[in-house]
């Protein structure tokens, strides 16, 4: 952008009553890239003029606290990798390792009970998983494990030998184990599992 001294002198004088065509306004309205920096500066100027609303600032700080907690959970997730646990147990494990309050992130995602799997919690679980950086494939494995555990009591972890060298290998082995166990579940539970997993997928992609 040129400086004022370079440009102002070249401005033609014009009649300020000359109408502004609407097409011009429409064109300029769409030039987002050129305007955001200006809006940002104007917002900073506007904020600097008046007192801050204490309640609103407290909410903003709460939102930043959530981001901080999620960032720490992400770090732990990268460190720990896939562990064959239900989604609730996995996130609780990460929270324990990261020394993060689970209630902070649960409140943010709208999940009341991480261990329960009612249909209504699908979008909250998806939101939390995305926040923590769990990919969709891994999330689905955790969710399916949760449904098996709810139906069968415990997940027989010993069923899969700890021989995998990579996270992806481990996940693949567990996926095939989960599929084999799911075949033994009642038709009703299988249907519930499919519907719930689909809802989680939709929530994750939304």
């Amino acid at each position, binding site marked *: *952008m*040129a*400086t*004022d001294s*370079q*440009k*102002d002198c070249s*401005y*033609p*004088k*014009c009649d*300020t009553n*000359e109408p*502004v*065509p*609407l*097409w*011009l*306004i*429409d*064109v*300029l*309205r*769409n*030039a*987002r*890239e*050129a*305007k*955001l*920096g*200006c*809006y*940002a*500066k*104007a*917002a*900073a*100027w*506007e*904020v*600097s003029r008046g007192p*801050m*609303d204490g309640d*609103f*600032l407290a*909410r*903003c*700080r*709460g*939102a*930043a*606290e959530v*981001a*901080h907690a*999620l*960032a*720490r959970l992400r*770090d732990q997730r990268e460190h720990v990798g896939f562990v064959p646990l239900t989604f609730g147990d996995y996130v609780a494990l990460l929270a324990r390792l990261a020394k993060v309050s689970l209630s902070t992130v649960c409140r*943010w995602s709208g999940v009341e009970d991480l261990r329960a799997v009612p249909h209504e919690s699908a979008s909250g679980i998806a939101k939390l998983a995305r926040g923590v950086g769990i990919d969709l494939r891994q999330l689905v494995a955790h969710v399916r494990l949760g449904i098996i555990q709810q139906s069968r009591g415990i997940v027989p972890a010993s069923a899969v030998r700890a021989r995998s060298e990579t996270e992806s290998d481990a996940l693949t082995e567990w996926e095939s184990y989960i599929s084999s166990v799911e075949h033994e579940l009642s038709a009703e539970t299988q249907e519930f599992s499919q519907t719930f997993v689909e809802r989680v997928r939709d929530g994750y992609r939304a």
Partner: protein
Amino acid sequence: MPDERVSGLDSLAERMSSGDEKAYRAFADAFGPQFQAYFRRRGLSDADAEALAVSCITDAALAIRKFSYEGPGSLQRWAFTIAHNKLVDWARGQQYMFSLNEVSCYPDEDTSTSWSNESVVAAACEALNELSEVDHNIVCLRLLKQPYPFAEIGEMLDLTETAVRVRHHRALMRLRKILEKNPACIELLSSSQQKRSQDDGHG
């Protein structure tokens, strides 16, 4: 416009990336109210502007490791890009109740023409960048749905209200001259005129 407060924020990103909790709080204090002010100017109600600003703080802070420093003010520009995208997503969800149309200060008219054409948008960006910084700011701040009053823009830019009005109009006329020479704009203008003639003929 005061830039000192903003440029001091650029170091926040690095501190946040290393997990400094105080930096997260400072980010919230700085950007929460700015996002709120921006959303209000774009026409959101106080309640919606607040809720969206709070949500933006989490999103932007969580994405902070993707930020790369590109000179003074870059964190603010980056954060506002996130805020803007969030606003667009929000508006899509409210499509029957809310329009992101920025120009309520101008009379309503359905031009029935797609001015969001990529070449035209690029030409508009180039044309805006040909203005001086002051005129560029004046034009942009008047395009908002809740435009800054001329008097406030004057206060912001240290100009009288009359000077802002005159510069605003001259800048628009200059932009008009530039864009009327642009091939993509010429094409769209001509198709728009043809369409209008056809409509008039039918009417």
